[in-house]
Protein backbone atom coordinates (compact mmCIF):
# COMPACT_ATOMS: atom_id res chain seq x y z
CA UNK A 1 0.00 0.00 0.00
CA UNK A 2 1.75 3.13 -1.18
CA UNK A 3 -1.08 5.52 -1.88
CA UNK A 4 1.18 8.54 -1.85
CA UNK A 5 3.47 7.24 -4.52
CA UNK A 6 0.46 6.43 -6.63
CA UNK A 7 -0.93 9.90 -6.19
CA UNK A 8 2.34 11.46 -7.29
CA UNK A 9 2.45 9.38 -10.44
CA UNK A 10 -1.18 10.23 -11.20
CA UNK A 11 -0.49 13.89 -10.84
CA UNK A 12 2.42 13.56 -13.18
CA UNK A 13 0.18 11.87 -15.73
CA UNK A 14 -2.44 14.56 -15.40
CA UNK A 15 0.19 17.22 -15.87
CA UNK A 16 1.11 15.63 -19.20
CA UNK A 17 -2.48 16.25 -20.31
CA UNK A 18 -2.97 12.74 -21.72
CA UNK A 19 -3.72 14.37 -25.07
CA UNK A 20 -7.35 15.22 -24.17
CA UNK A 21 -7.98 11.75 -22.81
CA UNK A 22 -10.16 11.21 -19.80
CA UNK A 23 -8.46 11.03 -16.42
CA UNK A 24 -10.64 9.20 -13.93
CA UNK A 25 -9.48 9.26 -10.38
CA UNK A 26 -12.84 9.52 -8.58
CA UNK A 27 -11.61 7.65 -5.52
CA UNK A 28 -8.46 9.67 -4.92
CA UNK A 29 -10.38 12.10 -2.78
CA UNK A 30 -10.96 9.37 -0.22
CA UNK A 31 -7.27 8.56 0.31
CA UNK A 32 -6.05 8.78 3.87
CA UNK A 33 -2.71 10.61 3.82
CA UNK A 34 -0.36 11.89 6.51
CA UNK A 35 -0.72 15.62 6.84
CA UNK A 36 3.00 16.29 7.32
CA UNK A 37 5.47 14.54 5.04
CA UNK A 38 5.22 11.06 3.65
CA UNK A 39 5.31 7.79 5.41
CA UNK A 40 3.11 5.01 6.67
CA UNK A 41 -0.25 5.80 8.24
CA UNK A 42 0.08 4.59 11.79
CA UNK A 43 -2.57 4.68 14.47
CA UNK A 44 -1.56 8.07 15.88
CA UNK A 45 -0.32 9.69 12.65
CA UNK A 46 -1.80 13.12 12.07
CA UNK A 47 -3.61 12.63 8.77
CA UNK A 48 -6.21 14.45 6.73
CA UNK A 49 -8.73 12.48 8.81
CA UNK A 50 -7.40 14.28 11.88
CA UNK A 51 -7.58 17.65 10.15
CA UNK A 52 -11.17 17.34 8.96
CA UNK A 53 -12.42 15.81 12.18
CA UNK A 54 -10.77 18.67 14.08
CA UNK A 55 -12.51 21.14 11.78
CA UNK A 56 -15.79 19.36 12.50
CA UNK A 57 -15.20 19.77 16.24
CA UNK A 58 -14.33 23.45 15.76
CA UNK A 59 -17.51 24.05 13.75
CA UNK A 60 -19.62 22.37 16.42
CA UNK A 61 -17.92 24.43 19.15
CA UNK A 62 -18.40 27.61 17.10
CA UNK A 63 -22.10 26.96 16.65
CA UNK A 64 -23.10 25.46 19.98
CA UNK A 65 -20.67 27.04 22.43
CA UNK A 66 -19.56 30.37 20.97
CA UNK A 67 -22.94 30.92 19.31
CA UNK A 68 -24.77 30.64 22.62
CA UNK A 69 -22.29 32.42 24.91
CA UNK A 70 -24.56 35.45 25.40
CA UNK A 71 -27.36 33.16 26.69
CA UNK A 72 -29.82 35.73 25.33
CA UNK A 73 -33.54 35.43 25.96
CA UNK A 74 -33.99 36.96 22.52
CA UNK A 75 -31.47 34.86 20.57
CA UNK A 76 -28.97 35.98 17.97
CA UNK A 77 -28.94 34.17 14.60
CA UNK A 78 -26.27 31.65 15.61
CA UNK A 79 -27.98 31.01 18.90
CA UNK A 80 -31.27 30.45 17.03
CA UNK A 81 -29.62 27.82 14.85
CA UNK A 82 -28.10 26.12 17.90
CA UNK A 83 -31.48 26.14 19.66
CA UNK A 84 -33.13 24.83 16.50
CA UNK A 85 -30.68 21.89 16.38
CA UNK A 86 -31.21 21.26 20.10
CA UNK A 87 -35.00 21.32 19.76
CA UNK A 88 -34.92 19.19 16.62
CA UNK A 89 -32.87 16.35 18.15
CA UNK A 90 -34.49 16.63 21.59
CA UNK A 91 -37.95 16.24 20.08
CA UNK A 92 -36.70 13.37 17.90
CA UNK A 93 -35.34 11.49 20.92
CA UNK A 94 -38.49 12.20 22.93
CA UNK A 95 -40.93 11.24 20.16
CA UNK A 96 -39.11 8.27 18.64
CA UNK A 97 -37.20 6.71 21.53
CA UNK A 98 -39.51 7.79 24.35
CA UNK A 99 -39.13 9.76 27.57
CA UNK A 100 -36.90 7.11 29.20
CA UNK A 101 -34.31 7.64 26.46
CA UNK A 102 -33.81 11.35 27.21
CA UNK A 103 -30.56 10.50 29.03
CA UNK A 104 -29.15 9.39 25.65
CA UNK A 105 -29.96 12.79 24.13
CA UNK A 106 -26.34 14.09 24.32
CA UNK A 107 -25.18 10.93 22.59
CA UNK A 108 -27.66 11.23 19.71
CA UNK A 109 -26.85 14.94 19.49
CA UNK A 110 -23.11 14.11 19.28
CA UNK A 111 -23.66 11.62 16.46
CA UNK A 112 -26.03 13.89 14.55
CA UNK A 113 -23.83 16.98 14.80
CA UNK A 114 -20.66 15.08 13.94
CA UNK A 115 -22.25 13.52 10.85
CA UNK A 116 -24.01 16.64 9.65
CA UNK A 117 -20.89 18.81 9.99
CA UNK A 118 -18.58 16.18 8.52
CA UNK A 119 -20.96 15.78 5.57
CA UNK A 120 -21.20 19.50 4.90
CA UNK A 121 -17.46 20.07 5.35
CA UNK A 122 -16.93 17.20 2.92
CA UNK A 123 -18.86 19.16 0.30
CA UNK A 124 -16.22 21.88 0.23
CA UNK A 125 -14.00 21.49 -2.84
CA UNK A 126 -10.66 19.76 -2.12
CA UNK A 127 -11.92 18.63 1.27
CA UNK A 128 -11.89 15.16 2.76
CA UNK A 129 -15.16 13.50 3.76
CA UNK A 130 -14.58 11.55 6.95
CA UNK A 131 -18.10 10.07 6.91
CA UNK A 132 -17.50 8.48 3.50
CA UNK A 133 -15.26 5.90 5.18
CA UNK A 134 -16.80 2.67 6.30
CA UNK A 135 -14.30 2.51 9.18
CA UNK A 136 -15.78 5.70 10.62
CA UNK A 137 -19.46 4.88 10.13
CA UNK A 138 -18.99 1.28 11.24
CA UNK A 139 -17.46 2.36 14.54
CA UNK A 140 -20.44 4.65 15.20
CA UNK A 141 -22.96 2.02 14.13
CA UNK A 142 -21.27 -0.69 16.22
CA UNK A 143 -21.17 1.71 19.14
CA UNK A 144 -24.91 2.26 18.87
CA UNK A 145 -25.51 -1.49 18.44
CA UNK A 146 -23.45 -2.42 21.50
CA UNK A 147 -25.01 0.36 23.55
CA UNK A 148 -28.53 -0.76 22.64
CA UNK A 149 -27.73 -4.40 23.42
CA UNK A 150 -26.00 -3.66 26.73
CA UNK A 151 -28.64 -1.18 27.90
CA UNK A 152 -31.37 -3.60 26.86
CA UNK A 153 -29.92 -6.47 28.89
CA UNK A 154 -29.05 -4.19 31.82
CA UNK A 155 -32.58 -2.79 31.99
CA UNK A 156 -34.65 -5.88 31.20
CA UNK A 157 -32.24 -8.78 31.87
CA UNK A 158 -33.09 -11.80 29.76
CA UNK A 159 -36.51 -10.25 29.19
CA UNK A 160 -34.79 -8.12 26.55
CA UNK A 161 -34.94 -11.19 24.30
CA UNK A 162 -38.68 -10.55 24.25
CA UNK A 163 -38.18 -8.13 21.38
CA UNK A 164 -37.57 -11.18 19.17
CA UNK A 165 -40.70 -13.00 20.35
CA UNK A 166 -43.67 -11.26 18.70
CA UNK A 167 -46.47 -12.15 21.10
CA UNK A 168 -49.11 -10.53 18.90
CA UNK A 169 -48.39 -12.97 16.05
CA UNK A 170 -50.00 -16.42 15.79
CA UNK A 171 -48.08 -18.98 17.84
CA UNK A 172 -47.07 -21.05 14.82
CA UNK A 173 -45.44 -18.07 13.12
CA UNK A 174 -43.54 -16.91 16.17
CA UNK A 175 -40.39 -19.08 15.77
CA UNK A 176 -40.06 -18.04 12.13
CA UNK A 177 -40.59 -14.40 13.01
CA UNK A 178 -38.09 -14.74 15.85
CA UNK A 179 -35.47 -16.01 13.42
CA UNK A 180 -36.16 -13.09 11.05
CA UNK A 181 -36.06 -10.64 13.93
CA UNK A 182 -32.71 -12.00 15.18
CA UNK A 183 -31.18 -11.76 11.71
CA UNK A 184 -32.50 -8.24 11.19
CA UNK A 185 -31.21 -7.24 14.63
CA UNK A 186 -27.68 -8.32 13.76
CA UNK A 187 -27.81 -6.77 10.30
CA UNK A 188 -28.66 -3.40 11.86
CA UNK A 189 -25.08 -2.12 12.37
CA UNK A 190 -24.19 -3.15 8.83
CA UNK A 191 -27.09 -1.30 7.16
CA UNK A 192 -26.74 1.57 9.62
CA UNK A 193 -23.10 2.18 8.66
CA UNK A 194 -23.08 1.28 4.96
CA UNK A 195 -26.10 3.52 4.28
CA UNK A 196 -24.20 6.62 5.40
CA UNK A 197 -20.77 5.78 3.99
CA UNK A 198 -22.25 4.53 0.72
CA UNK A 199 -24.33 7.64 0.18
CA UNK A 200 -21.46 9.99 0.87
CA UNK A 201 -18.94 8.02 -1.18
CA UNK A 202 -21.23 7.55 -4.20
CA UNK A 203 -22.20 11.21 -4.41
CA UNK A 204 -18.65 12.48 -4.16
CA UNK A 205 -17.38 9.90 -6.64
CA UNK A 206 -20.08 10.85 -9.17
CA UNK A 207 -19.16 14.52 -8.84
CA UNK A 208 -15.53 13.61 -9.53
CA UNK A 209 -16.51 11.55 -12.58
CA UNK A 210 -18.43 14.47 -14.04
CA UNK A 211 -15.51 16.74 -13.18
CA UNK A 212 -13.30 14.53 -15.33
CA UNK A 213 -15.82 14.80 -18.19
CA UNK A 214 -15.71 18.58 -17.83
CA UNK A 215 -12.20 18.49 -19.31
CA UNK A 216 -13.61 17.30 -22.62
CA UNK A 217 -14.72 20.36 -24.58
CA UNK A 218 -17.73 18.84 -26.33
CA UNK A 219 -19.53 17.70 -23.18
CA UNK A 220 -18.13 20.10 -20.62
CA UNK A 221 -21.27 22.34 -20.39
CA UNK A 222 -23.35 19.25 -19.73
CA UNK A 223 -20.81 18.01 -17.19
CA UNK A 224 -20.76 21.32 -15.35
CA UNK A 225 -24.56 21.43 -15.19
CA UNK A 226 -24.53 17.85 -13.95
CA UNK A 227 -21.95 18.69 -11.26
CA UNK A 228 -24.12 21.56 -10.09
CA UNK A 229 -27.23 19.39 -9.98
CA UNK A 230 -25.52 16.55 -8.15
CA UNK A 231 -23.91 19.01 -5.75
CA UNK A 232 -27.38 20.34 -4.89
CA UNK A 233 -28.59 16.79 -4.39
CA UNK A 234 -25.56 16.06 -2.19
CA UNK A 235 -26.38 19.04 0.03
CA UNK A 236 -29.77 17.47 0.58
CA UNK A 237 -28.30 13.98 1.08
CA UNK A 238 -25.76 15.31 3.58
CA UNK A 239 -28.51 16.48 5.88
CA UNK A 240 -30.89 13.59 5.24
CA UNK A 241 -28.25 10.94 5.96
CA UNK A 242 -27.35 12.61 9.24
CA UNK A 243 -31.05 12.77 10.09
CA UNK A 244 -31.56 9.11 9.11
CA UNK A 245 -28.57 8.01 11.21
CA UNK A 246 -29.88 9.91 14.22
CA UNK A 247 -33.47 8.72 13.88
CA UNK A 248 -32.38 5.09 13.43
CA UNK A 249 -30.26 5.43 16.55
CA UNK A 250 -33.43 6.61 18.33
CA UNK A 251 -35.45 3.70 16.92
CA UNK A 252 -32.85 1.21 18.16
CA UNK A 253 -32.65 2.93 21.56
CA UNK A 254 -36.41 2.56 21.89
CA UNK A 255 -35.94 -1.23 21.83
CA UNK A 256 -33.46 -0.95 24.68
CA UNK A 257 -35.36 1.37 27.01
CA UNK A 258 -39.01 0.51 26.42
CA UNK A 259 -40.93 -2.59 27.44
CA UNK A 260 -39.78 -5.42 25.12
CA UNK A 261 -43.16 -7.19 25.19
CA UNK A 262 -45.07 -5.23 22.62
Amino acid sequence: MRPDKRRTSDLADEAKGEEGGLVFHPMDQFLVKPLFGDGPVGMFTITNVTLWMALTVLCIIALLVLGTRSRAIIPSRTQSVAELAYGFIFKMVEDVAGKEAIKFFPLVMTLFLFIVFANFLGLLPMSFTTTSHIAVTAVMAMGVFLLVTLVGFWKHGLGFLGIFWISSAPLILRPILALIEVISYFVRPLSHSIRLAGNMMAGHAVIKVFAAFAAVLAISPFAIVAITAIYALEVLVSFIQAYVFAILTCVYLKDAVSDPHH
Partner: protein
Amino acid sequence: MATENTGEVVADAPGMPQLDFSTFPNQIFWLVVTLIVIYFVLSRIALPRIGSVLAERSGTITNDIAAAEDLKQKAVEAEEAYNKALADARSEAAKIVASTKAEIQTEVDAAIQEADAEIAARAAEGEKAIAAIRDSAKADAATVAKDIAKDIVAAVAPGKIDAKSITAAVTAKMKG
Protein backbone atom coordinates in the same frame (compact mmCIF):
# COMPACT_ATOMS: atom_id res chain seq x y z
CA MET B 1 0.37 5.37 -20.70
CA ALA B 2 -3.21 5.15 -19.55
CA THR B 3 -3.27 1.36 -19.48
CA GLU B 4 0.03 1.33 -17.64
CA ASN B 5 -1.39 3.78 -15.13
CA THR B 6 -4.56 1.72 -14.57
CA GLY B 7 -2.47 -1.38 -14.09
CA GLU B 8 -0.35 0.42 -11.60
CA VAL B 9 -3.41 1.51 -9.62
CA VAL B 10 -4.76 -2.02 -9.44
CA ALA B 11 -1.39 -3.32 -8.39
CA ASP B 12 -0.67 -0.56 -5.95
CA ALA B 13 -3.86 0.04 -3.99
CA PRO B 14 -7.34 -1.36 -3.71
CA GLY B 15 -9.99 0.30 -5.88
CA MET B 16 -11.57 1.81 -2.84
CA PRO B 17 -9.52 3.64 -0.22
CA GLN B 18 -12.40 2.76 2.10
CA LEU B 19 -11.24 -0.85 2.07
CA ASP B 20 -7.59 -0.02 2.76
CA PHE B 21 -7.47 -1.68 6.14
CA SER B 22 -4.04 -0.22 6.96
CA THR B 23 -5.69 3.17 7.58
CA PHE B 24 -8.43 1.80 9.83
CA PRO B 25 -6.63 2.12 13.19
CA ASN B 26 -5.78 5.72 12.39
CA GLN B 27 -9.35 6.61 11.41
CA ILE B 28 -10.89 4.79 14.35
CA PHE B 29 -8.49 6.39 16.82
CA TRP B 30 -9.17 9.92 15.60
CA LEU B 31 -12.91 9.26 15.33
CA VAL B 32 -13.05 8.10 18.95
CA VAL B 33 -11.07 11.14 20.06
CA THR B 34 -13.38 13.42 18.05
CA LEU B 35 -16.57 11.85 19.38
CA ILE B 36 -15.35 12.00 22.98
CA VAL B 37 -14.41 15.67 22.59
CA ILE B 38 -17.77 16.50 21.00
CA TYR B 39 -19.64 14.51 23.65
CA PHE B 40 -17.93 16.31 26.51
CA VAL B 41 -18.28 19.73 24.94
CA LEU B 42 -21.97 19.08 24.37
CA SER B 43 -22.87 17.40 27.64
CA ARG B 44 -20.73 19.67 29.86
CA ILE B 45 -21.18 23.07 28.20
CA ALA B 46 -23.44 23.42 25.19
CA LEU B 47 -26.53 21.36 25.96
CA PRO B 48 -27.05 22.46 29.60
CA ARG B 49 -26.57 26.05 28.49
CA ILE B 50 -29.07 25.83 25.62
CA GLY B 51 -31.48 23.87 27.81
CA SER B 52 -31.35 26.52 30.54
CA VAL B 53 -31.80 29.31 28.00
CA LEU B 54 -34.85 27.57 26.56
CA ALA B 55 -36.29 26.93 30.02
CA GLU B 56 -35.62 30.52 31.06
CA ARG B 57 -37.30 31.79 27.91
CA SER B 58 -40.40 29.66 28.35
CA GLY B 59 -40.47 30.73 32.02
CA THR B 60 -40.23 34.38 31.03
CA ILE B 61 -43.00 33.97 28.47
CA THR B 62 -45.24 32.22 31.00
CA ASN B 63 -44.57 34.93 33.59
CA ASP B 64 -45.25 37.69 31.10
CA ILE B 65 -48.51 36.09 30.04
CA ALA B 66 -49.54 35.72 33.70
CA ALA B 67 -48.62 39.36 34.40
CA ALA B 68 -50.61 40.48 31.37
CA GLU B 69 -53.59 38.46 32.57
CA ASP B 70 -53.25 40.04 36.01
CA LEU B 71 -53.11 43.55 34.58
CA LYS B 72 -56.12 42.84 32.39
CA GLN B 73 -58.05 41.66 35.47
CA LYS B 74 -57.03 44.85 37.28
CA ALA B 75 -58.19 46.98 34.36
CA VAL B 76 -61.56 45.25 34.37
CA GLU B 77 -61.85 45.82 38.12
CA ALA B 78 -60.94 49.48 37.74
CA GLU B 79 -63.54 49.90 35.05
CA GLU B 80 -66.14 48.30 37.28
CA ALA B 81 -65.21 50.59 40.18
CA TYR B 82 -65.40 53.60 37.88
CA ASN B 83 -68.82 52.61 36.60
CA LYS B 84 -70.04 52.02 40.16
CA ALA B 85 -68.74 55.41 41.30
CA LEU B 86 -70.41 57.02 38.33
CA ALA B 87 -73.74 55.38 39.11
CA ASP B 88 -73.44 56.31 42.79
CA ALA B 89 -72.72 59.93 41.92
CA ARG B 90 -75.68 59.99 39.55
CA SER B 91 -78.13 58.61 42.12
CA GLU B 92 -76.71 60.97 44.76
CA ALA B 93 -77.22 63.91 42.44
CA ALA B 94 -80.76 62.78 41.66
CA LYS B 95 -81.47 62.52 45.38
CA ILE B 96 -80.11 65.99 46.04
CA VAL B 97 -82.14 67.39 43.15
CA ALA B 98 -85.32 65.78 44.48
CA SER B 99 -84.82 66.96 48.07
CA THR B 100 -83.97 70.49 46.96
CA LYS B 101 -87.04 70.51 44.77
CA ALA B 102 -89.25 69.42 47.67
CA GLU B 103 -87.70 72.02 49.98
CA ILE B 104 -88.27 74.79 47.46
CA GLN B 105 -91.83 73.54 46.89
CA THR B 106 -92.67 73.72 50.59
CA GLU B 107 -91.16 77.19 50.83
CA VAL B 108 -93.11 78.32 47.79
CA ASP B 109 -96.29 76.78 49.20
CA ALA B 110 -95.82 78.54 52.51
CA ALA B 111 -95.15 81.85 50.81
CA ILE B 112 -98.24 81.45 48.62
CA GLN B 113 -100.38 80.64 51.64
CA GLU B 114 -99.08 83.62 53.49
CA ALA B 115 -99.71 85.85 50.53
CA ASP B 116 -103.19 84.40 50.09
CA ALA B 117 -104.02 85.07 53.72
CA GLU B 118 -102.75 88.64 53.48
CA ILE B 119 -104.69 89.20 50.28
CA ALA B 120 -107.87 87.81 51.90
CA ALA B 121 -107.36 89.98 54.97
CA ARG B 122 -106.81 93.06 52.88
CA ALA B 123 -109.84 92.25 50.72
CA ALA B 124 -112.00 91.85 53.81
CA GLU B 125 -110.74 95.17 55.17
CA GLY B 126 -111.50 96.89 51.91
CA GLU B 127 -114.96 95.39 51.76
CA LYS B 128 -115.63 96.53 55.26
CA ALA B 129 -114.53 100.04 54.39
CA ILE B 130 -116.67 100.00 51.25
CA ALA B 131 -119.68 98.77 53.26
CA ALA B 132 -119.17 101.52 55.83
CA ILE B 133 -118.86 104.11 53.10
CA ARG B 134 -121.98 102.75 51.37
CA ASP B 135 -123.95 102.77 54.67
CA SER B 136 -122.92 106.31 55.44
CA ALA B 137 -123.76 107.33 51.89
CA LYS B 138 -127.21 105.71 52.17
CA ALA B 139 -127.87 107.41 55.45
CA ASP B 140 -126.69 110.71 53.98
CA ALA B 141 -128.90 110.20 50.93
CA ALA B 142 -131.95 109.43 53.15
CA THR B 143 -131.30 112.48 55.29
CA VAL B 144 -130.83 114.67 52.23
CA ALA B 145 -133.99 113.17 50.60
CA LYS B 146 -136.10 113.79 53.76
CA ASP B 147 -134.78 117.31 54.11
CA ILE B 148 -135.50 118.03 50.46
CA ALA B 149 -138.96 116.38 50.68
CA LYS B 150 -139.82 118.46 53.78
CA ASP B 151 -138.62 121.60 52.05
CA ILE B 152 -140.67 120.78 48.90
CA VAL B 153 -143.77 119.91 50.96
CA ALA B 154 -143.39 123.06 53.04
CA ALA B 155 -143.07 125.08 49.88
CA VAL B 156 -146.02 123.43 48.15
CA ALA B 157 -148.41 123.00 51.07
CA PRO B 158 -147.15 124.62 54.20
CA GLY B 159 -148.36 123.24 57.53
CA LYS B 160 -150.66 120.66 56.17
CA ILE B 161 -148.48 117.54 56.37
CA ASP B 162 -146.22 116.86 59.40
CA ALA B 163 -142.57 115.95 59.26
CA LYS B 164 -143.15 112.45 60.60
CA SER B 165 -145.26 111.19 57.81
CA ILE B 166 -142.98 112.69 55.22
CA THR B 167 -139.96 110.79 56.68
CA ALA B 168 -141.97 107.51 56.63
CA ALA B 169 -143.02 108.06 53.04
CA VAL B 170 -139.45 108.80 51.94
CA THR B 171 -138.13 105.76 53.79
CA ALA B 172 -140.79 103.56 52.18
CA LYS B 173 -139.99 104.95 48.71
CA MET B 174 -136.25 104.43 49.18
CA LYS B 175 -136.75 100.84 50.28
CA GLY B 176 -138.91 100.03 47.24
